[in-house]
């Protein structure tokens, strides 16, 4: 029997998602997520031998488009949505660590 989810697990996932949760929320979400995982465990108990894993709810593959250029947005419109702009680029606070 796999261990059930703890408040530490939820706090960890919340940190990864940059969510700030109160102690009361942590407790509540832990209970809710545990219920979701219990349900997954019910499904896991079924015999799925020979069932192809389902990657998607739609019975579709290979939805492709042709490699044809379509108009991009007007730059002034795009940059109007940026919190700050410098040299036609989005200006963001100093970043620690490099991009991947």
């Amino acid at each position, binding site marked *: 029997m796999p261990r059930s989810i703890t408040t530490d697990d939820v706090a960890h996932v919340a*940190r990864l998602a940059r969510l700030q949760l109160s102690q009361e929320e942590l407790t509540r979400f832990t209970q809710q997520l545990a219920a979701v995982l219990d349900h997954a465990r019910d499904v896991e108990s079924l015999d799925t031998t020979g069932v192809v894993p389902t990657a998607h709810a739609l019975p579709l593959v290979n939805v492709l488009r042709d*490699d044809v250029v379509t108009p991009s947005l007007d*730059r002034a419109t795009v940059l109007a949505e940026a919190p700050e702009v410098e040299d*036609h*680029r989005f200006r963001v606070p100093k970043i620690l660590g490099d991009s*991947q």
Partner: protein
Amino acid sequence: MSTEPVVPAPSSGWETVIGLEVHCELRTQTKLFCGCRNSFGEEPNTNVCPVCLGLPGSLPVLNRAAVEYAIRIGAALHSTVQASMFHRKNYFYPDMPKDYQISQYDVPINAGGWLTLPGGRRIGIVRAHLEEDTGKTTHVGGGGRIHEATRSLVDYNRAGVPLVEIVSAPDMRSADEARAYVDELRAILVATGASDGKMEEGSLRVDANVSVRPAGSEEFGTRCEIKNMNSLRSLGRAVDYEVSRQIQLIESGGVVSQETRHWDEGAGRTASMRSKEEAYDYRYFPEPDLVPVDPPEEWVASIKASLPPMPSERRERIAEMSGLPAGSEAVVTVVRLGLDDLVEAVGAQGADTKSVGGASPAVAAIAVKRAANEVASDLAGAANLERSSFAKLVRMESSGQLTSAQARTVLKSMLEAGGDPEVIAEGLGFEAMESGGLEAIVDDVIAAHPEEWARYSEGEDKLAGFFIGHVKQATQGKADLKSASALLRSRR
């Protein structure tokens, strides 16, 4: 004074283990999931739309041409092209406005494979998967260094550009081998048409996983991932530096910690980059907005059939024609510079016995050497070099009509100004030595030096040079010295 930092040679007793991740931008017209133009060097933020900016309600649609290029790459690397799907790789960094990158995770489009280095070593490929590129961040203020920057500027033109990431097995054992792998992979990617191969423009980016272990050990040491190498030279320097750093660390009682390190080209060293905890927890999950890709067999087969010969096959072909080793510098150079057709042209002009493609191995070997030397050092001239004229020149040299020194001179002139080799040779006063004329000269030289001839005839072989020297003098360098040597031996 050299500005190169002193990198001590690795202590003996250690083995280097290198695996490489190469990101290759695909030469499509548009991005991976939207119709924005895929183009380098445009005005910032002009090729962006709701999809690549990650605006709410936008939906990605996969580019058919990107899938085709990915399959071409997989086929060229002997991978298994398979049904695959996309995942979201979640992280917070302003280079991706969605806060996730669409990539492939446990089921990549290409699984397994290998490539063969010119020296014959086979390097394994783990996978070659499709993903989108990130935007370009520029750190400003504080002299451009990340740690001193006051702010960062982001251009999203590159966000969503299609990439194939090729992950090698940890099969390389030296910086030289890592460079050779990237060089070979680049040639393959260019041959498939998927890439322009320009490392300096970032269309090909290399990250290196480097570790060391005691020689003979089967277990891997802890690896570091090195980023920010913008050329083959940087790659070699960065790997050498990192290997020395790890060995010194271990020998002085320290422990290598698994981390990402940034190569500083100016300082000639790597430095630890990412220190934040949980940096590697990307919480991958299946991309709900995209359906799986399952390329029909006929499509994959037609793509495979349309691929040109890859560099290793071309080297084998040239080696077979010329009798030179496939890994020899001349053969590698000819193939790298795409001069194979010059060698083939010589075959097309003849039907020599024991030939592959019409030229005997000796004739083809002359063509390879001339192509790898004179032609390779004047590529501008090579573009205008008539294949048939080159073939004619090689035939003139192989038949002894021109000495190799004369052939080189004539070829240089052809590369500079074009023209027929026979006409150029005549203009330079390189009249062909009639073989009868050469015989007469050799006999004259022998007659003029009876004493030396007697000693040579009795087995003093080194005197051959003396006679050849005189033949050369008598003919003002026009004689084919090989023929002269043969004549000399026949008179003995």
